[in-house]
């Protein structure tokens, strides 16, 4: 079945440092979504990427979808304490009725 792996599993960074998490799928994806889950909370949608090689930015967050549509990355510039949480990528192999498979997640901890 479809597998979606993320690295690293954990990341501790000093406040103000940059952070990157990488997402790799065993199969080609039709799209990739990114979610953030705060400690004790539920996943909240951040963004969706659809096109090969697509790059999108949300303030300090930069999202990229690989050319082969099998990998993606999320980069946070100058982390803040509010960035704490677990970041999940999620993908589907096709549009319509394909199930949404989540990646293994990267837990980000910020050292003040």
């Amino acid at each position, binding site marked *: 079945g479809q597998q979606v792996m993320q690295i690293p599993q954990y990341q501790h960074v000093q406040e103000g440092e940059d952070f990157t998490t990488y997402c790799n799928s065993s199969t080609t994806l039709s799209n990739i979504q990114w979610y953030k889950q705060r400690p004790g909370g539920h996943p909240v*949608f951040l963004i969706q990427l659809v096109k090969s090689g697509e790059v999108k930015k949300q303030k300090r967050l930069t999202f990229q979808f690989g050319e082969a549509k099998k990998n993606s990355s999320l980069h946070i510039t100058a982390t803040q304490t509010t960035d704490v949480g677990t970041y999940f990528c999620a993908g589907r192999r096709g549009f319509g009725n394909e199930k949404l498979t989540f990646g293994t997640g990267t837990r980000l901890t910020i050292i003040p």
Partner: protein
Amino acid sequence: EADIYQTPRYLVIGTGKKITLECSQTMGHDKMYWYQQDPGMELHLIHYSYGVNSTEKGDLSSESTVSRIRTEHFPLTLESARPSHTSQYLCASSEVGARDTEAFFGQGTRLTVV
């Protein structure tokens, strides 16, 4: 804020009891999902539905069952709870379309079986 609700938020129950976790959404979404998540760990898809009378098993084998008699309601049932079922259960929903939209999650039910 998303209109998807899960009850109860917390449940402590004895081994062998039958339980039903409720999930309702008022957004008219056809797709609904159940994920199981241990604290700080990845989300495992255990059930999903494309619409009324449609249910499928997810990637993680689960002893739970689901039903989808109404669009807005997607309950999950455990006939005989065991300590191994202790986990957080997250329900989600999304629209069906040519371009997929985001999944909205409920607050989750934290289940403890003693």
